């Protein structure tokens, strides 16, 4: 395996705290907020994060594949979740302590509940509006009601964090 080359490009409107562990080739889009103690590891291929995402404390993003790991816009990754999926669409929520294996791909507007494991043996794409919930990681489809409210909350949350985080935390800048 070739040695890791660190290459970070962080958009000037993104907020990435100093206390974030980053390895490899990482691109962070405009307006994305990364809380302290998150970790982003592009072990082989690069990771590209879209705009207005929120990565909370203890979130771990890992890319072990050669291909680019693409994360869409306005996704929320809550505390201590671990995500290895190669493709993630827009407006998804991965809740606290949830885990996504490298065989899953997410569409748009999916919700992975707190503590859920999504670890299929074979490659699988979760269609849009899938909700994974409960101790056995059962699935059902969301009607999409309250979607606009959810998006609005997400947008205001990101806006608030972009304003407040720099007041209390040191930020990492693109080199």
């Amino acid at each position, binding site marked *: 395996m070739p040695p890791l080359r660190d290459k970070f490009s962080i958009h000037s409107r993104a907020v990435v705290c100093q206390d974030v562990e980053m390895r490899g080739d990482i691109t962070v889009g405009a307006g994305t907020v990364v809380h302290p103690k998150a970790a982003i590891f592009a072990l082989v291929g690069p990771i590209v994060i879209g705009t207005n995402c929120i990565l909370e404390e203890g979130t771990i993003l890992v890319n072990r594949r050669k291909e680019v790991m693409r994360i869409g816009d306005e996704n929320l990754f809550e505390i201590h979740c671990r995500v290895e999926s190669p493709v993630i669409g827009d407006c998804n929520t991965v809740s606290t302590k949830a885990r996504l294996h490298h065989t899953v791909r997410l569409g748009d507007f999916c919700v992975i509940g707190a503590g859920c494991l999504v670890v299929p043996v074979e490659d699988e794409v979760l269609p849009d509006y899938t909700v994974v919930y409960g101790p056995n990681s059962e699935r059902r489809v969301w009607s999409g009601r309250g979607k606009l409210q959810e998006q609005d909350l997400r947008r205001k949350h990101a806006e*608030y964090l972009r304003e*407040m985080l720099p*007041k209390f*935390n040191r930020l990492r800048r693109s080199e």
Partner: protein
Amino acid sequence: MNTLPVVNYVKSEYIETDTGNKVSRRATIAGAQNIILGGKTIIANAAIIRGDLRRTGPGHAVVISLGRYCLVGEGCVMRPPYKTYRGNFNYYPMKIGDHVHIGAGSVVEAATIGNHVEIGKNCVIGKFTIIKDCAKIADNTILPPNTVVPALSLFAGSPGQFIEDLPETTQELVEAYTKLYYNRFLPVES
């Protein structure tokens, strides 16, 4: 009860305040000016406490207040809950009473936690949860947002559900246990 082992820690790893709080140097504490510790509270290694997520508005805002004889276990995350109210996004303060133990690896986003509450390991306490006095949350419990846990009840499972009532002596037992734990959490030189 008296069989509780002595927990030793390296003296240089913890900061002890004059009210007896013991805070690990390896804990992440953001916005420390917005956090109140009641005294004799222990914050273990790798805990994360977010005092920077404060309510917007002028003046001083308390974000997280902890009572006396509390324990924040290893790798715990404590952060205040958020919501939009009348179109404005805000974080709301989190209040925790006295004699509250939070087990290792738990994530707490509660609005209020009463006195003499025990929370197990690897729990997830959802946003705006209210936990009343002397309640107990078992290990690996996931409480969904806005749950209310009544006094003297044991909650467990995913989603967390009522399991049984706790005896009325819970208050004395928990109080004795938290005091004993604090007294046996002792420094060693080196």
